[in-house]
């Protein structure tokens, strides 16, 4: 299988505090990779490094074929990012947000128009095109934020707790989009506090105090920890 992210001995220190302590793992092309851990385990630090937003203390890391020390700008062009905390501009409309992101990633106006029409149709949001983001239901914002994050057809999309606070149907419809993206060859790197969502991942890594304590398919993790579900696996590791 083709590796899309390789991480070898990644270390990140803040003063004496070791946030990432020799992380080593690979992510394969087209997989849904769950990156789990308790609050403060070091997930966000690692994601920031892989997205080129923070520089590591040491280690060898390659994202989408580019080196995290020397080719940060190339990495940024080849990844998408979405988090629950920030994703869309609330006081821009749906169409303006799409135009803005398309502009940043250098997508031609012609292609943008085609893709925007296609996207709005797929999300059944055509008549909300000129509405402000602020007035949309949370579930719509999340779906749109995800679609905008992959609008430039990145190789990898990083999702940092994308699904908090929505009803169970909306949460599952969001995962339909994730499956679809992965099926189209986009690698999905996702963090979540919903343990049922950990089951939807091809492989899951669980961090604890700056280290990766476990990394495998949900089925194998459950077998190894003799657990009924991922919730039990997580509690055994993180407690």
């Amino acid at each position: 299988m083709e590796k899309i992210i390789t991480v070898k001995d990644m270390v990140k220190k803040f003063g004496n505090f070791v946030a990432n302590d020799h992380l080593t793992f690979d992510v394969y092309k087209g997989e849904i990779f769950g990156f789990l851990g308790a609050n403060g385990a070091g997930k966000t630090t690692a994601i920031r490094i892989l997205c080129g937003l923070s520089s590591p203390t040491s280690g060898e890391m390659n994202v989408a074929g580019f080196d995290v020390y020397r080719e940060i700008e190339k990495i940024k062009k080849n990844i998408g990012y979405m988090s629950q905390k920030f994703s869309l501009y609330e006081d821009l409309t749906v169409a303006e947000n799409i135009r803005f992101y398309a502009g940043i990633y250098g997508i031609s106006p012609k292609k943008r128009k085609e893709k925007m029409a296609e996207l709005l149709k797929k999300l059944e949001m055509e008549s909300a095109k000129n509405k402000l983001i602020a007035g949309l239901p949370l579930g719509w914002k999340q779906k749109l934020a995800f679609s905008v994050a992959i609008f430039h057809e990145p190789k990898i999309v990083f999702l940092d707790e994308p699904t908090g606070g929505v009803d169970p149907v909306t949460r599952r419809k969001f995962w339909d989009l994730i499956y679809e993206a992965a099926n189209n060859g986009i690698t999905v790197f996702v963090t979540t506090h919903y343990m049922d969502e950990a089951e939807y991942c091809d492989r899951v890594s669980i961090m604890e105090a700056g280290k990766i304590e476990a990394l495998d398919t949900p089925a194998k993790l459950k077998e190894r920890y003799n657990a009924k579900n991922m919730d039990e696996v997580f509690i055994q590791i993180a407690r």
Partner: protein
Amino acid sequence: MEAAKIFKLITATDHYKMIQINNISKSYDDVQALTEISLKVEKGELFGLIGPDGAGKTTLMRILMTLLLPDSGEAKMDGLDVIKDFKKIRHIVGYMPGRFSLYQDLSVEENLNFFATVFGTKVEENYDLIRDIYYQIEPFKTRRAGKLSGGMKQKLALSCALVHKPKILVLDEPTTGVDAVSRKEFWEMLKKLQKKEITILVSTPYMDEANLCDRVALIQKGKILDVDSPKRITEKFPRKIIQVRSDEMYRLINNLRAYEKAESVFAFGQFVHFTSIDDDVETSELDIYLEKHNHKNILVEEIHPGIEDVFMELMKSEPQAKSHEL
């Protein structure tokens, strides 16, 4: 005897109602946040308001906390009216809002002392109530609240909400954005507080937490879908739920959705939950259908529903927002 009289007799001998909500409605401009909500919470109960963002949980809690006036209806906390007796209510309730709202530039200790003083008490007075929670953050008592981790902020906020030994504790989404382990610990703390005769009203968007409550109200778009114990809510659910698994999740979902009898098909952890139109489906036919589509390691079985299954079914009767209505 007519039904109304029987009902009165039953309720008269029933437990004391610590929280009584009758036909509360509230709107903001053109948004109807709450529509004729009625609820009763008994003394000593751990009661959950379960629903997604925008369901009206915070609005209802703010009305009970006397921070917001309802448009109509009435509510009582330990027999006190939320409008007329608001000052008295504030002495008997503890409130932990959804957004961290302690003083960021006061230390842990200073925050706690501040809240004790505001309520005319001392931290030592009711220390037994907060000991189990506070001792975990005590090593950091000189640290500014703004510099605490998420889990520690949560423990401090809970300590401050308990410092005056409230009769009723109201917690607005205390576990949102918190990892699975910390969530579990937080619920264990709530169970301990319940034993100390505090009535607890807690809201959460995590459906699995419903099972930790004595009773729950499922709430969506300002309306209550159902109120009951989590066990009864799932037991009385009339639909047939079939749980399906195979080695390929995405293909499984798509194949099941394409099946002629399919009504709803959604992922539930490692399984897919399948309901069919009129519940007219046998596990054996799904088995055959999936084998025909070359699925491996197929499992098809009828199961008891969980809270999420019920919530998703009850949601269907509510019209979903369409983009042209916004």
